[in-house]
């Protein structure tokens, strides 16, 4: 357990290592020192994008990172007034504008790094936030598409993402704890939850796990998820990730916690259950019978992805007898010219499909289409005509590839695809016995997984029949009366939180 390791490390650090840090940093001024212009310029020595303006008439110094601020805002709110003001009016202006005063050097340093402008006047340091770097506009999600429902997706800017969520949850109960991760990068993380719905113990636990992370930088929420999960070596994602604010809203009201990381367009929610990964916002926007059918289709898709090619290999290699006579003849004809054993044949095709998929994902959309044509028609057709594979295998491989794309979650779909390879290899050596053995091993593993100390396969095992109304089926809204057991919320009943 990764986070446990840090837990130990951070404990021992606290015990014996509190004062050694200061000695090591003799070059830079101690951080609790009074903020002064010299100290700040010394800290930001050799930062070419730091702007330093001096107004000799009024004896004001202004320092900011030009790359982090909104030029317009800076000009209108700070620079223009300063250049127009008289010496005597400055104090008044600062008070009126509610510009905060920094008490320590660390404070002013952090503020400048977060996009504030530092103002030095009369041996005092003030700061005013003019953060406003260029950001991408809100757009549709490329990886999670919704047919009927809200299309806006998160962007890389955490404030925009927060606003997307606040717009949807207009409640004073929506709390956001701000944390920082990354020893060097100091990236902002917001831990969101709804007070009174989310379990406070879980919030504490999650907060603790994020606080003890010790890495130079966290690049994305998906990385954050790997740093705080319980089984870092598992194949399966233990936190649900999404780009859609709509999904985040539904997670929050169901009593889960959501984490946002600055510079990442993905939110993760916890605790997560395996069955969340077959759900899509579309299910809730359709009428319940339709939503249920689509969800069942996805469950079948998982099954097809996992076993279809493996069953083909097992049947062709070991169990001809299970096929009815007519089907057997068709199969035998299609395989008559193939020189490889079924396992090799299947692996060849599966790897080709994976290559095509990866190439399609990395290439720009327009060239990506060409890859589809090259792969689908040229390789598929040619491989059969050249006698390298059988038609039936192409059908099996293609169906399981298509089925794997039915899963709404990209991370889970990747995990399932890897398991498929394991099953194919086992099927090649041990037939159906291998497939069942593989499924058994994977089941044992997946059942023992936990997400924030809650069972991953809830509500199937441990069994909570009440939660089934929103697992394989998307029950009618009148039947969905309770929040998921997994959230451990004391506020179990839905729709009872009027304010």
């Amino acid at each position, binding site marked *: 357990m990764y986070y446990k390791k840090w837990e130990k490390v951070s404990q021992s650090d606290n015990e014996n290592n509190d004062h050694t840090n200061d000695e090591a940093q003799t070059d830079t001024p101690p951080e609790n020192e009074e903020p002064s212009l010299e100290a700040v310029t010394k800290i930001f020595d050799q930062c070419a994008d730091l702007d330093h303006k001096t107004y000799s008439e009024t004896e004001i110094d202004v320092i900011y990172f030009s790359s982090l601020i909104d030029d317009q805002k800076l000009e209108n709110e700070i620079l223009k007034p300063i250049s127009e003001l008289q010496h005597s009016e400055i104090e008044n202006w600062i008070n009126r504008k509610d510009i905060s005063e920094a008490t320590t050097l660390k404070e002013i340093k952090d503020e400048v790094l977060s996009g504030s402008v530092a103002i030095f006047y009369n041996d005092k340091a003030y700061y005013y936030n003019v953060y406003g770097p260029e950001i991408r506009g809100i757009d549709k999600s490329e990886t999670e598409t919704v047919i009927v429902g809200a299309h806006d997706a998160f962007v890389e800017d955490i404030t925009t993402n927060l606003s997307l969520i606040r717009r949807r949850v207009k409640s004073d109960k929506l709390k956001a704890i701000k944390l920082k991760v990354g020893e060097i990068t100091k990236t902002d993380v917001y831990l969101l939850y709804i007070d009174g719905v989310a379990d406070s113990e879980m919030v504490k636990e999650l907060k603790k796990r994020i606080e003890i992370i010790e890495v130079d930088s966290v690049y994305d929420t998906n990385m954050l998820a790997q740093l705080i999960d319980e089984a870092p070596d598992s194949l399966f994602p233990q936190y649900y990730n999404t780009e859609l604010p709509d999904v985040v809203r539904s997670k929050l009201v169901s009593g889960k916690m959501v984490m946002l990381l600055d510079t990442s367009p993905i939110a993760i929610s916890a605790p997560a259950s395996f069955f969340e990964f077959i759900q899509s916002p579309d299910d809730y926007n359709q009428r319940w019978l339709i939503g249920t059918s689509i969800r069942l289709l996805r469950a079948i898709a998982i099954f097809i992805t996992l076993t279809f090619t493996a069953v083909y290999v097992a049947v062709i290699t*070991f*169990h001809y*007898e*299970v*096929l*009815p006579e007519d*089907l057997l003849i068709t199969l035998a004809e299609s395989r008559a010219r193939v020189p490889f054993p079924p396992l090799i044949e299947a692996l060849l095709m599966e790897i080709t499909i994976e290559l095509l998929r990866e190439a399609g994902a990395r290439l720009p959309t327009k060239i990506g289409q060409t890859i589809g044509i090259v792969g689908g028609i040229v390789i598929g057709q040619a491989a059969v005509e050249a006698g390298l594979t059988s038609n039936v295998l192409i059908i099996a491989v293609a169906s399981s590839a298509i089925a794997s794309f039915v899963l709404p979650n990209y991370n889970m779909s990747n995990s399932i695809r890897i398991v498929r390879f394991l099953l194919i290899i086992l099927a090649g050596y*041990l*037939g*159906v*016995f291998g497939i*069942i*053995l593989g*499924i*058994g*091993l994977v*089941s*044992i*593993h997946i*059942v*023992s997984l936990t997400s924030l*100390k809650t*069972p991953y*396969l809830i509500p*199937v*095992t*441990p*069994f909570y029949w009440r939660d089934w109304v929103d697992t394989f089926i998307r029950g009618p809204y009148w039947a969905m009366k309770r929040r998921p057991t997994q959230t451990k919320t004391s506020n179990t009943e839905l729709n009872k939180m009027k304010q």
Partner: protein
Amino acid sequence: MNEKLHYTQIAVIVYMIQSGVILFALPRIVAEAFGTNGWLGLFPLSAVALANIVFIILVYKKGNGQSVFTILEQSFPKWLCYPIYLFMIVSFSLLAVLVAKNYIILIQNAMFPEVSANSFLILFLITALFFLSKGIYNMGKITLLFFFMTIWTIFLLFLLFPEFSFTRLTPFIFKGQIDPFEKGFEAYTAFLGFELVLFLFPYVQNDGKFGKAVIAGHLFTTFIYVSVCFVAMGFYSFEQVKGILYPMQNLLKFMETPLIERIENIVFVIFFIKIIVTVTFYYWGALQATKRIFIKTKEKWLMLIIVGSTFFSSLFFEIKREVDELLNVIAILQTIFSFSFPLLLLLLLWLQKAKAKRGNKIA
């Protein structure tokens, strides 16, 4: 967090440990044991097992859910407990490996006649070891998932309904050549496995439903056995069913759908998931006893040693007949154990209570 086994898990665990590969042979065994309409004979057998279960539940109630090892060690000195533990370790772990081997030999004969059974056994035991390493609470959860993964096979019986005929059941009850003791005992072994709940006491939720759950699990097993035997006896004639080694397997051969037929091997393989539960729980029982002897050794090593050593001892029995013979001996020992051990515990509990009372009086 105080994790405990839920009563539904207990019921499922009991069912999953009990039912095993014997299901395939059970219609023949009951026919040989009780004659015509032998499926009715399962009821008295189930009642005997139920009586045994009641003893176990009594131990749970009288002992207030304390571990059987604690009860034992409170009355006996350690050196007296060790032979009992040793017996448990040997019989449980041997039973586990033999059940596995028995199944593996069947699979190997049916599907891979040219491959050595032992290589399959290694794979089987690795899975069991992995299963065992997850701890009892996860084992409970895994068992529940495995239950869902296998229970659908019972619905295959519906496919046989068109062929079912009441006339084949005959109006006679328990007629023909019968052997209610030897064969009847063989049928009784199908119910064995419930005795392992003795070791679950410290891990169950204390909500008073433990006893009901064990009984529910046992009754579910009885229901499955009876319905399978009933259908099989209405499908085959009496003489026919006696002549087939695995009547259920033959039944499956008969089923046909447009896409798939002759699913007997596939269903047989799916039983892997059931057998692994039985095997793992027997190993777990052995592990609990071992932990009492080697208190300081890490559990991981104990598991490896138990599974490893039983694997090597299973190498002495390569033919199905040998495995069957030994299994039979162990089943007898196991039956004696499952009756006498709860009785012994009840006696000890009674003595402890009497002693405590006397102590109170003197004080």
